């Protein structure tokens, strides 16, 4: 029989695959099942929610713009270079990805804090970063930018190198090549990277609470509010969580439909 080995191997692979799916999906289902749906509108009208939502949307938008403006050129340099330094830079970039966010928060505090590596030079000018909205953006950018850069770099590496050669023989500068050929071609990759980075920024918790603190309207983003509300009124925390889940799914869904395969 041709398919004699088919069913045993299907089971051997299928059972762990189903388990993996359950591990990922059941917690999301639990969130939806345990929620008191009739309370969601009033929960989301809790006075602390709107400032947190506004803050989350502003800071993640600024983070996305920073990724776009600073991350795209970095991705381009990484994509076109084969120098061994490049692979070191790329490895360095993945560190914030694998670093526990709270460690990132400590590192940021030691950088931008009052006595920090860079912060100590800002203090004389009256500039203090911790406990400000700027700190929230810095924390979000620290954790989110690597996602964007790696995604865009991957997309740029996928381009046909001859395109750049041709553009060059036609006399195009680096900037002109990127504007007219490079970026339009990697737009789907950029959108995907941006969505990933934005979602990561939206969910940022550890680095934010460590570095930016927790103050309503100034540094208390939605995930921080979920944490605090869980101690005060768990149902409010669940309602906010569902809103965050919906927003994340919506954004990823829209991007997937439009740009990602």
């Amino acid at each position, binding site marked *: 029989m041709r398919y004699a080995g088919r069913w045993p191997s299907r089971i051997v692979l299928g059972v762990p695959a189903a388990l993996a799916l359950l591990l990922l999906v059941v917690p999301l289902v639990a969130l939806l099942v345990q929620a008191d749906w009739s309370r969601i509108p009033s929960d989301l009208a809790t006075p602390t929610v709107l400032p947190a939502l506004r803050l989350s949307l502003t800071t993640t938008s600024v983070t996305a713009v920073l990724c776009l403006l600073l991350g795209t050129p970095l991705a381009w340099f990484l994509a076109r270079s084969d120098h061994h330094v490049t692979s070191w830079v790329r490895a360095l970039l993945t560190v914030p*990805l694998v670093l526990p966010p709270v460690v990132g928060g400590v590192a940021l505090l030691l950088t931008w804090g009052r006595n920090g590596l860079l912060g100590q030079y800002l203090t004389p000018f009256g500039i203090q970063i911790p406990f400000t909205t700027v700190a929230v953006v810095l924390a979000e950018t620290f954790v989110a930018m690597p996602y964007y850069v790696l995604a865009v770099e991957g997309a740029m590496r996928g381009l046909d190198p001859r395109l750049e050669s041709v553009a060059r023989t036609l006399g195009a500068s680096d900037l002109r090549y990127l504007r007219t050929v490079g970026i339009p071609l990697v737009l789907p990759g950029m959108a995907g990277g941006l969505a990933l980075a934005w979602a990561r920024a939206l969910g940022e918790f550890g680095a934010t609470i460590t570095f930016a603190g927790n103050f309503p309207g100034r540094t208390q983003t939605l995930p921080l509010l979920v944490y605090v509300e869980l101690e005060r009124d768990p149902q409010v925390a669940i309602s906010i969580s569902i809103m965050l889940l919906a927003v994340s799914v919506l954004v990823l869904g829209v991007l997937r439909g439009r740009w990602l395969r």
Partner: protein
Amino acid sequence: MSAGPRPYPHASRIRHSARAAPVALLVAALLSACGGSTSPSSSPAGTGAGALSGTVTVLAAASLTESFDQLKVDFETAHPGVTVETSYGSSATLVQQVDNGAPASVVALAGTSAAEPLDKNLIVDTRTFATNILEIAVPPGNPGKVTSLDDLAKPTVKVVVCADSVPCGKAAQTTFRKASVVPNVVSKEVDVKATLAKVKLGEADAAVVYHSDVVAARGAVTGVGIPSRLNTTLSYPVITLADDAASRAFVAYLLSAQGRNTLQAFGFGPP
């Protein structure tokens, strides 16, 4: 910049890095998902008249960190068969954890009101074992020149307090109300040790914490007293959840003269 075409890495490298990126993302996601773990369940202690044995899992308010670390060592020395496992967090978090099934033999909380959301069916016994008062903690050298509660209202003084949901935050709000002070709060931290840490790091000029935290910080911060008419006193309850000999012995030790001495050395008052 040279105008010539730059070499691109060969195809195999491209495929390799394309495969490596999702792996890195996966690893990152896994790592960031790893949160704090709860301690394992308490095993039943020996019920005989002989030596005690087993594990006592103690969840304690963050302000009890240093004193309970000491009490754990002392108790284990006295009862070699018993292992005491401690976990610290804000009282609000601990109560939340117990209500959600966290295995705990004993819970020690900051303030009686923190115990209110605790599931009454789980409680075997409740006793008050210590008291604590608030104090202002400032970094060494006192950069904000804080000498009283009133100074916390100055716009130049960065004040860190506990979140309103945790006992030290509630107590601080009560004291601010009594003193009619609107402090320049820059952050509301999740527990008292996180609040203290911001002062230890020198990022905040003042924090409202417990007297015991200033004592436990051993010179890393300086305490500025709050007059008793404005201060808020918290009674610390210890709640027994597991009805076994080792857990009862631990609570008895906490209430004994010896336990009280240790707590006093860490800045706590008698119940």
